[in-house]
């Protein structure tokens, strides 16, 4: 409660005490600009991290329970082997459903590469069978062996090969986003520390006069801390606001779900950027407080 009262007292401020330090110098603009720019970047890092998280979850969920069987055989054997595969699948425990993709679906899959007029029936295109697993899943090694016996042209692709690296990549991207946020926060703290030290150094005479009339270090520090905290809060609010506007104007995620078009906030995630200004103010509070006490300790 005491700490809360201190924070509230800091925000409420003491108009008289606040005036004892002159409002001048480049530290004002530096703090505003730094916290604004850092908040803008923080919003993007946050968006990147959240989008990467969504992507990892989506890939993980979407691919975990599906697999594909590719049947490559001469045209005459293609249909019998497809039926054989479907029959094997029907008898395999852990398979929820299985179906062969239609010509239209296969054409749609190939269309981005070969164009819309692909003569599918004249080409030795493998037949694809989509398999959906039950939550318990199937024994992929056993299924492979049975497929080899019943339909020698069938190859089971359970997506594990490429799902895992993708999910891992998305997870790392998410972590990178959080690391960026941490670095941004640390940089904000460092810049504000420098600005506070510069402000304290340029007010040596003011500090001396205050000390001679009985000002305690905590009083002197408070005048600087409050000022830098409010500046950081204002700058970060502006930067975060601009960042949110910029994110809002990014192209929306399309049905195809290409990664870059999905960069942004979804649903309640839009509340996350609102945390950035208080976080910047919190960082500024502690950075300035530490810098002020350190500098005051060194002053004669």
């Amino acid at each position, binding site marked *: 409660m005491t700490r809360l009262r201190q924070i509230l007292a800091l925000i409420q401020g003491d108009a*008289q*005490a606040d*005036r*004892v330090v*002159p409002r*001048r110098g480049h530290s004002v603009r530096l703090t505003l600009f730094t916290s604004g720019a850092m908040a803008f970047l923080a919003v993007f890092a946050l968006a990147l991290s959240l989008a990467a998280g969504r992507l990892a979850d989506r890939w993980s969920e979407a691919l975990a329970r599906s697999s594909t069987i590719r049947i490559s055989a001469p045209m005459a054997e293609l249909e019998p082997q497809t039926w054989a595969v479907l029959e094997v699948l029907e008898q395999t425990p852990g398979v929820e459903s299985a179906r062969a993709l239609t010509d239209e679906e296969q054409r749609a899959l190939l269309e981005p590469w070969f164009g819309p007029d692909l003569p599918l029936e004249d080409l030795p295109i493998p037949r694809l069978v989509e398999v959906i697993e039950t939550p318990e899943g199937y024994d992929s090694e056993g299924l492979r062996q049975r497929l080899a016996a019943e339909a020698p042209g069938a190859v089971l692709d359970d997506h594990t090969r490429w799902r895992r690296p993708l999910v891992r990549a998305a997870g790392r991207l998410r972590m990178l986003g959080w690391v960026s946020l941490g670095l941004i926060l640390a940089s904000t703290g460092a810049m504000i520390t420098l600005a506070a030290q510069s402000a304290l150094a340029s007010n040596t*005479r*003011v500090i*001396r*006069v*205050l*000390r*001679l*009339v*009985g*000002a*305690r*270090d*905590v*009083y002197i520090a408070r005048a600087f801390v409050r000022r830098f905290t409010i500046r950081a809060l204002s700058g970060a609010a502006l930067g975060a606001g601009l960042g949110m506007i910029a994110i809002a104007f990014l192209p929306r995620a399309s049905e195809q779900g290409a990664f870059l078009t999905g960069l942004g906030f979804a649903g309640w995630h839009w509340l996350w950027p609102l945390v950035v200004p208080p976080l910047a103010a919190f960082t500024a509070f502690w950075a300035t407080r530490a810098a002020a006490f350190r500098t*005051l*300790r060194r002053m004669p």
Partner: protein
Amino acid sequence: MIDLAEVAYGYGNTTLLSELTLRLAPGSFHFLTGPSGSGKTTLLKLCYADLTASAGKVSLFGQDTATMTRDQIARARQRMGVVHQDCEFLDHLPLYENVALPLTVAGRSGDDEAGNLEELMGWVGLAARREALPPELSGGERQRAALARAVITDPEVVLADEPTGNVDWEMSLRLLQLLVELNRMGKTILVATHDLALIRAAKTHVSARVLRIAKGRLQLAGSDL
């Protein structure tokens, strides 16, 4: 209240003050005199812990300044009023806020204090200059303002370093009267000055000890005063 026991102070290899013993008892009035550079300002700075003695012991309100924290020194200074020789102010604040600065830092800003401030500004003849910024003030005005700032908190001790150096005789007597009145109210006063006429004038109103610093030592002034 303020005790100096066998205190020494020097800059580099030069010893300015040595074996200096002084006790400012509550309610006492002391003048400190001596030639320029004799160490009057240094002695006052030792008294408000702006300097640390190189030997001996300085006690402020019963505490050894050598072991006091900055916080304790600040609290001790809140009980003192100091007129510094260089009369430093915050140049960005109007005069009345500078005079009220000791109240501000002590968190005292009630109606009583506001009334005292107006009265004091009038007493030192600066009521019309209350909105002026310190750089706009003359040397005499700065000294009067410094004295007003020193006594605004109704301190237990007033230490004044040449408080009348730049003011005319009439104003000097007026400022002296203020210090005498404070002393009659039980405040402890130490005034460093080379103005012997002022000391003589004061002695007609108040029982004051006159100390002289000579060759780094403190001695009672002779009958010439």
